[in-house]
């Protein structure tokens, strides 16, 4: 039974190994100092235990010791900080060529939208060996997307998009959990990340019965009369959308903004926060008419209209 005791989670992503190495270093340092203190206390307690004939001897403070046990911890923590931040910044950089998948967290489930069309609930199928970037949205409260085996975690905050990337290295099924308390069924907001061989993943994608989100997005685009102002060519009422995804756009305020997912979402929900140069703030809000899944579908549709210069 002892052999079955779990001590360490599986490593199933490209970053898991480096995070674990750092954790082991921290464990060694922590163990060293813990044992040091325990042993010193133990040793001193025995060696200097009170007994007849033994009195305490005053020991003057030694500045050199104070400096030592200030400087050494400072040095060690500097190492931990540098190592930890370096690894963290590296892990935060979106890798080039990552495939995007849209994920919505809502009380109490995860819905996943693959751009090619498959939708999932509580499961995320991904290919091994390829960087995957998740664009995360919350329908209601703060959730958190956590895959222990990949050592990745990101809060999913309502009102904005957050992102998380990983590259899975091992075929298999790995637990996915919500790691930010979100209400009654927080412990039930779990699922699986299913890592497949790339070819199997392609087959799985192709077997989906759902429309690609871009198609659903196009339907929404028509239904909500977006085309009325945003005919795909420029009109006087609204800026063009074709070939825009990823470009940099100038706003009335003078600032330059990237035409990315977050910008599209904001334009749908708070249209007059950022107005494109040369246009008036007349776009109505669709705040209570579109949920996060539907906004993702519209984004997918706009992406399908062509990308601009900058990468998505």
């Amino acid at each position: 039974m002892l052999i079955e005791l779990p001590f360490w989670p599986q490593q199933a992503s490209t970053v898991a190994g480096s995070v674990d190495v750092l954790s082991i270093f921290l464990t060694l340092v922590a163990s060293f100092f813990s044992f040091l203190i325990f042993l010193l206390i133990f040793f001193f307690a025995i060696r200097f235990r009170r007994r007849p004939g033994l009195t305490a001897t005053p020991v003057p403070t030694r500045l050199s010791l104070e400096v030592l046990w200030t400087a050494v911890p400072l040095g060690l923590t500097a190492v931990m900080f540098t190592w930890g931040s370096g690894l963290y910044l590296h892990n935060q950089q979106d890798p080039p060529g990552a495939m995007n998948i849209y994920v919505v967290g809502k009380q109490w489930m995860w819905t996943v939208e693959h751009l090619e069309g498959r939708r999932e609930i509580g499961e995320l199928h991904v290919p091994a060996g390829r960087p995957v970037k998740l664009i995360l949205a919350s329908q209601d409260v703060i959730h958190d997307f956590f895959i222990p085996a990949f050592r990745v975690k990101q809060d999913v905050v309502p009102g904005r998009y957050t992102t998380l990337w990983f590259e899975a290295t091992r075929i298999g099924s790995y637990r996915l959990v919500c790691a930010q308390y979100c209400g009654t069924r927080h412990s039930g907001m779990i699922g699986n990340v299913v890592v497949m061989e790339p070819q199997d993943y392609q087959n799985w994608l192709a077997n989906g019965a759902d429309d690609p989100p871009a198609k659903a997005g196009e339907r929404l685009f028509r239904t909500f009369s977006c085309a009325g102002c945003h005919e795909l060519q420029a009109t006087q009422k609204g800026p063009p959308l074709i070939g825009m995804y990823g470009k940099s756009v100038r706003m009335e305020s003078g600032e330059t903004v990237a035409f990315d997912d977050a910008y599209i979402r904001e334009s749908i929900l708070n249209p007059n926060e950022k107005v494109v140069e040369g246009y008036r703030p007349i776009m109505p809000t669709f705040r209570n008419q579109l949920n996060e899944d539907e906004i993702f579908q519209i984004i997918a549709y706009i992406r399908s209209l062509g990308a601009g210069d900058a990468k998505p």
Partner: protein
Amino acid sequence: MTHANVPENYLNASWGWRSWLLTRDHKRIALLYLISITLFFIVGGFFALLIRLELLTPAGDLVQAETYNKLFTMHGLIMIFFFLIPSIPSVLGNFLIPLMIGARDLAFPKLNLLSWYIYIIGGVFTLAAVVTGGVDTGWTFYTPYSSTYANSNVILTALGIFITGFSSILTGLNFIVTIHKMRAPGLTWLRLPLFIWAHYATSLIMVLGTPVLAISITLILLERSFHSGIFDPKLGGDPLLFQHLFWFYSHPAVYIMILPGMGVVSEIVTCYSRKKIFGYTFVALSSLAIAALGFLVWGHHMFVSGASPFAGMVFSMLSFLVAIPSGIKVFNWTATLYKGSISFDAPMLYALGFIGLFTIGGLTGLFLATLAVDVHVHDTYFVIAHFHYIMVGGAVMAYFGGIHFWWPKITGRLYPEVWARIAALIVFIGFNLTFFPQFLLGYLGMPRRYHAYPEEFQVWNVMSTAGASILGLGYLIPIIYLLWSLRYGRVATENPWNAMGLEWQTPSPPPESNFAATPIVTEEAYSYDIHT
């Protein structure tokens, strides 16, 4: 043990309800606090018991999900705001600060009594919230769940916490003024007991940090009452603003909970080693450093919240820095043992346990300060293990150590030493059994606030629950024998431990005005070398 010739002291100076409930005597107020926080400790502990029982099995089968959410919320709220934060300052601090500095009382005795009443009123509100359905937001009240979505007694609970916060502020204010203005002649700052330094630093945090909690709660109350949108993204608000405001207080709050314990440990370690503290100035100033740096690290609770990575780096670096002064204290306490004459009375056992367990807890904090690792262990049982090592393995052990150390001074009775040592060992063993497995569970990926978990985690959870029952037993035993000692314990002399410190230069229990004549101080603290 007869009543015949007991001299007049603060306990028997007057009788009746009014003399206690309308007292201005800091010593009586300390006892009022002692009784109330013990009751809250039992309530909070009861919730912990239910949590651990539920976690015996992987399925959530003991209580409903909603009930479980209320259990961990209320466990956290009660333990933090009604036990840990007031415990050492309001019981031991209140009792001892005037005695240790040679004063007759605190600067503002009526304010002191008001602090207790405010604490009680806040407690009543919170307990009312508990018994009329509970609250399920987590003690951290994150928005928009707490401000918009939760269907539990958020307003009532928030009011209770808001009110209690003022108790903290007034206590801190009282302590700061007292320490500045009422020290006995000759008692310069660098002659003060480290207990006083620790409480001074704690009071600075109480005074400067708690108001920000008050505002955070006020905004939640407004949001819930008027749906104004401050934290609701659907109305333009930012949920992260709440997190910044909340943690700006709640991180320094953890230093409110640990600094007094560190002060207690300094007093105990010196007495039972019969030695001056090693590195007095460093230990004293490190308390101030912890208080100051503690205000600058709140963002380390938000590394994966969506805040900027650059901000994350700044907070990470500062979080490493705040660990350094704590390390300095641990090394200095350990060095104090060197060439001492060490005895292992119960208070010393608790103090030594504190040093060891606080060290482990503090070192695991480094994992959390390390950005890349925190991404993995944030919001898992690793964090729970970390803070329980510090709060329970640290603060609670220091509290018990202090209660035992000063019990003769407070009550005039000695506790039974053998039982006390047994209980200390049971606590130490039970504690480690309860919380060490949680480090493993956390790294394995068991999230916080889950009442159901995968099967393979069950062994560690069972071990943790088993430890919790031992820990509970360890806490029960002192409650019993301390009560017993009030009537049957050996009568204590003025200074049963032969300790340094002005509080031991007056009878046990002290007279109402503490000292027959104002003492004059001519030597450093812990002058055990001069007075063997």
